C-alpha cells in the first residue's frame, strides 16, 4: 500500500508544522487550566491524547490514494445530508442546540464532518466542471444547491458558526475554480443582500452576539463579558507578555472559555505581541504551505481538495483570532490545533491527512 516513492515524498514539513503548533497549544493549555482542580486527567493531558489520536488518523487518511474519494464524494455527501436531517429529527440536545448523534461511546457531530465532505464533494464537482472562462451565473445553480442544503440544515440546529464555515470554505474553492467578472459582482452583491436579509432569520441569541460585538460595554457582565475580558487579556500582555503562567487575566479566571475558544487570549497575555507574532507566522506558513501543496497537486481534484483544506484552516484561524481580539462577533469557532477539543482536533487532522495525501502523491499519476 505504501511504496518507497510515497515515503520519500512524505511531507515532513507539514507534519512538523502541525506538531509544532499543537505542542505550543498544549504548553499554553497547561498554563490556561493550571488553577483547575477538577477530578480526572488534566486538560493538557487529554489534549495530548487527542493529538496522538489525531496524528494516527492523519496518517491513516494519508495512506490510501485520495483519488478513491473522487468517486465516493457524492455518496459521502448524500450520507452526510441524511445524518444532518437525522440530527434535526432525533439528535442530542445540549445547551439549546441540537448538533449531535449519540453513538454510545462518543457523540458524532455531522455538521463538523460536513466541513470535510463539502470539500471532497466540491473538489469532485469543480474538477469536473471548471472551465477556463470561469463560471457563468447559471452554472452555479448546482454548486449553490450543494452548498446551500447542508448550510441551511446546519443553520437549523442552530449552529451559525459551522454553517458560515461551510459557506466560506466553498467560497474559497469557488474562487479557485474561477468566476466571470459579472458573476463575481452579482455574487458579491447577492452576498451583501443575504447578510442583510439573513439578519431577520437569525435567532435572538445570534443577534445578541452581533449587537454585543458592536457595543460590548453595553452589557459588560453579560454577553459583552467575553469580548471585554479577552481584549483586556490580550492588551495587557503588552509587547513581551506577562510571562508564562503569569497572566493575571488567565490565572485568576477572568478570561472565560480560556481553554477552548479563547485559548489564544491566554497565549497573547502571557507571550505578548512577540509571541503572538511568532504563532501567527507559523499559522500563515501552514496556510501557504497548504496552498503550495494544492499548487503542486498531480490532478485538479487533488488541487481543489488541498485548497479546500487550506481554506478550512484559514477561515477557522482568521475567524477565531478576529473574535478574540475584538474584530468580529463571538461565533464560537475554535482555533485549530490550539483550542482544546476532540472534535476540532479530529477535523483538523483529517484535513491534515488529506493534505499529506495529496502532497505525497504529487508525482503519482
Amino acid at each position: 500500500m505504501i511504496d518507497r516513492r510515497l515515503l520519500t515524498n512524505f511531507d515532513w514539513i507539514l507534519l512538523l508544522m502541525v506538531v509544532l503548533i499543537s505542542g505550543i497549544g498544549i504548553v499554553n493549555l497547561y498554563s490556561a487550566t493550571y488553577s483547575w482542580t477538577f477530578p480526572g486527567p488534566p486538560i493538557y493531558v487529554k489534549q495530548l491524547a487527542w493529538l496522538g489520536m489525531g496524528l494516527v488518523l492523519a496518517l491513516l487518511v494519508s495512506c490510501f490514494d485520495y483519488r478513491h474519494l473522487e468517486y465516493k464524494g457524492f455518496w459521502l455527501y448524500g450520507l452526510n445530508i441524511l445524518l444532518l436531517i437525522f440530527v434535526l429529527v432525533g439528535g442530542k440536545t445540549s445547551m439549546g442546540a441540537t448538533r449531535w448523534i449519540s453513538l454510545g461511546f462518543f457523540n458524532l457531530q455531522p455538521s463538523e464532518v460536513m466541513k470535510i465532505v463539502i470539500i471532497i464533494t466540491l473538489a469532485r464537482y469543480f474538477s469536473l466542471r471548471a472551465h477556463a472562462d470561469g463560471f457563468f451565473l447559471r452554472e452555479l445553480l448546482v454548486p449553490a444547491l450543494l452548498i446551500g442544503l447542508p448550510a441551511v440544515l446546519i443553520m437549523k440546529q442552530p449552529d451559525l458558526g459551522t454553517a458560515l464555515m461551510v459557506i466560506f470554505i466553498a467560497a474559497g474553492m469557488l474562487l479557485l475554480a474561477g468566476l466571470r467578472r459579472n458573476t463575481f459582482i452579482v455574487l458579491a452583491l447577492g452576498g451583501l443582500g443575504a447578510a442583510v436579509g439573513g439578519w431577520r432569520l437569525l435567532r435572538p441569541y445570534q443577534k445578541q452576539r452581533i449587537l454585543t460585538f458592536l457595543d460590548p460595554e453595553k452589557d459588560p457582565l453579560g454577553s459583552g463579558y467575553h469580548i471585554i475580558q479577552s481584549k483586556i487579556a490580550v492588551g495587557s500582555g503588552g509587547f513581551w507578555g506577562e510571562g508564562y503562567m503569569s497572566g493575571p487575566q488567565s490565572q485568576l479566571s477572568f478570561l472565560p472559555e480560556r481553554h477552548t475558544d479563547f485559548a489564544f487570549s491566554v497565549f497573547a497575555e502571557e507571550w505578548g505581541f512577540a509571541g503572538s507574532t511568532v504563532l501567527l507566522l507559523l499559522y500563515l506558513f501552514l496556510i501557504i504551505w497548504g496552498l503550495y501543496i494544492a499548487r503542486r497537486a498531480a490532478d485538479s481534484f487533488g488541487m481543489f481538495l488541498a485548497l479546500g483544506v487550506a481554506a478550512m484552516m484559514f477561515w477557522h484561524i482568521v475567524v477565531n483570532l478576529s473574535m478574540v481580539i475584538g474584530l468580529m462577533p463571538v461565533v464560537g469557532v475554535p482555533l485549530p490545533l490550539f483550542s482544546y477539543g476532540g472534535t476540532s482536533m479530529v477535523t483538523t487532522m483529517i484535513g491534515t491527512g488529506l493534505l499529506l495525501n495529496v502532497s505525497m502523491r504529487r508525482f503519482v499519476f
Partner: protein
Amino acid sequence: MRIRSDWARNTDLSKRFFLFSLAAAFVFVLLLSRLWYLQTINSERYDRLSEKNRTRYLPVASPRGPVFDRHGRLLVDSRPAFNISVMRQDVEEPEELLDWLSLYLEEDRQLLEERWKAGRRFPVYRPVTLAADVERSTLERVMENSFELAGILPVVHPIRHYPYGDMGAHVIGTLGEVGEEELRSGDYRSGEYQGKSGIEKVFEEYLRGQDGVRRVEVDARGKELRQWEVEPPKPGNKLFLSLDAPLQKVAQEAFGREAGSAVVMDVRTGELLAVVNSPSFDPALFARGIRSEEWKALLEDPMKPLQNRAFRGQYPPGSTFKPVVMLAALAEGAASSATTVDCQGSFEIGGRVFRCWKKGGHGLTNLKKALRESCDVWFYEVGLRLGIDGISEMAKQLGLGQETGIAIGGESSGLVPSRSWKKERFGAPWYKGETLNASIGQGFLLTTPLQLAVMTAAIANGGTVLKPYLVSRVEDWEGNLLFEQQPSVLRKTKLNPAQVETVHRAMTAVVNEPGGSGWRSRLSDVLVAGKTGTAQVVRLKEDDGDEADYESIPYRFRDHALFIAFAPADKPEIALAVIVEHGGGGGRTAAPIAGEILKGYFARREQGEAKKTPPAQGREGGNP
C-alpha cells in the same frame, strides 16, 4: 494525463495561487496590526483594566467612639464581636452545612436557613452572617471542626458594648442597620450600623468611626487571594456626658419595678446629672441587630420600656404646679404671704363644686400651709383672683409649654393653656372652672419630667431658665476639643427675690415641717425644698386623695405620683423631678425616690465626687 483538464491547462494557476497567498498574508497583516494596536499602543490602558479587574477595596469596620460620664467613667464602648459567616461561593453542600452549623451553634435550623436565603440577593463572594456575636468558645468549637465543610468564615467586627447595661439607654440611644436612604447617599456601606435614636443619632457624625480599607487581589469569583495593603480604621471620637453614672444608677434603682421617670439637673449650669426612664431596656439587643421576637416583646410590654418618658412623656403636673401659681400670684399681687383662706373642703363656682383633696378641709389656711399641705381651696381662691392668663404667663416664663431645646430623643412641648389658646383650639371662651383646674395643675396642663426639672431649677435659682444638656464635650483621640456645650440661659425671668424666698420657705416646709406632704424626701443633714403632686389619670366618682385604698383601683386607672425638689434649700445646687406612673399619691411614692436620689447626690458630694470637674482626658475613671 487525464488529470490536466481543460481548466487547468488554460488557467493561469500560478497567478491565482499567488493572489490567494497574498490575500492570506494580507489578512494576517491585518490581524497583526490589530494585535499591535491592542498590545503596544493601548497596552497601558488594558494593563490598568486588568489590574482593576483583580483589585478590590474592602472596608475594615471601625469602632464607634466611646461615651463617658462626667468623670470619665466608660458608659458605652466597642468590643470585638465574632460572627460566623459563610462564603456562598465556597459552599458545596448548603443543606449539610446548615445541619452541621445548627448542631455546633446550638441554633435553630430554620433560623439559619432563613438567614442563608436572605443572603442570596448579594454577590456570592459576600459573606453571609449566619450567627452574630457568638461566644469565643462557640467560635473555637466551630472553627476547629470547620475543615469538614468548605465556606465557613469567622468575621471579627466591632460592636457596641454597654458596661452599665440598661442604664440611660433612652438618652444614649440605640443603633440599627443603616437605612435605604443613607445607603443611597453613599456615605454608608450596607450592613453598617448607625445611631438610630438618642445621642447615638444626634452625635452620629462625631461617634461614627472612619472605616479602614484593605486592598486585596481577588480572582474572577471575587475570592480573596492576597492582601496588598491596609489602611487601618479610625475609631469615632470620645464623647463626655454630664451624667453622673453612680447617681444615675442610684436614681434608676430607686424606681424598683415602678414605671416612671426622674430628671436631675444642676440648677447653676443646666447639666443633667441623671435621666431615668423606668423601666429601661437593654441597648445591646439593638447593637447586634434586634430579633423580631425581641422587638415585638418590647413593643407589646404594657410597661412600655421603649418610651423616653423623661423627654417625651406628657403628664398633668398636678400639685407640683402650685409653686408656679404661688409665684405668679405674689408677682401680680393676687396674694401675699399673709393671704389666708378658710378651707371647708370644697369651693363653689357657677353652681359647680370643686373639692379640696382633703374632704374635711384644712380650715384657716395661710400661704405656707397652703403649699405645705397642698390645700386646693387656697389655690382655687388665689388662682381665680389671678386669672388664667396670669397663671399661664408665669408657667411659660418658667419654661413650661415649650421645648427646652435638649435636642436629644425628640422632645414633647407640653401644654400651657390660655384664653387665646382655647379660643383658637376649640373656638370656645375660657371658663372660670377651668382656671380652678389649672390652679392645681390639672385640666389642660401638660408637662414633661424634663420641663418640671427645668422649672424647678428656675424656681430654685431665682428665675433663670437654663437650657438642659447632656453632652458636655466631644474630643478626638489626640485630645482636641471638637464640641463643647457651655451652660446657656434660655430666659431670665424677673422675679422679686423676696417672693422667691417666700416660695422657697413654703417648699422647704413641704418637706421639713410637720404635716408637710413631702416629708418622705427629708434628709438628715441637708435642707430639701419640694412639692408633691398627684395627677389624675381618670376622674373617679368621688374626688379623693385617700391614699389608703389606692391598691384596690386597677393599675391603669391609678393616679400618677409626682415630686419636684431642689436642695440645699438655702443654696440650691440640684433640682429634680420625679414621676411615678400610676403611683398614687406623690408624697407616698415619688417623694421617697426623690429622697434616695438626693441622698445619693449629697453622699457623693461629701466624698468630693459629684462636683468635681470632669478630667480633661482618659478613658479610666475612678469607681465610687
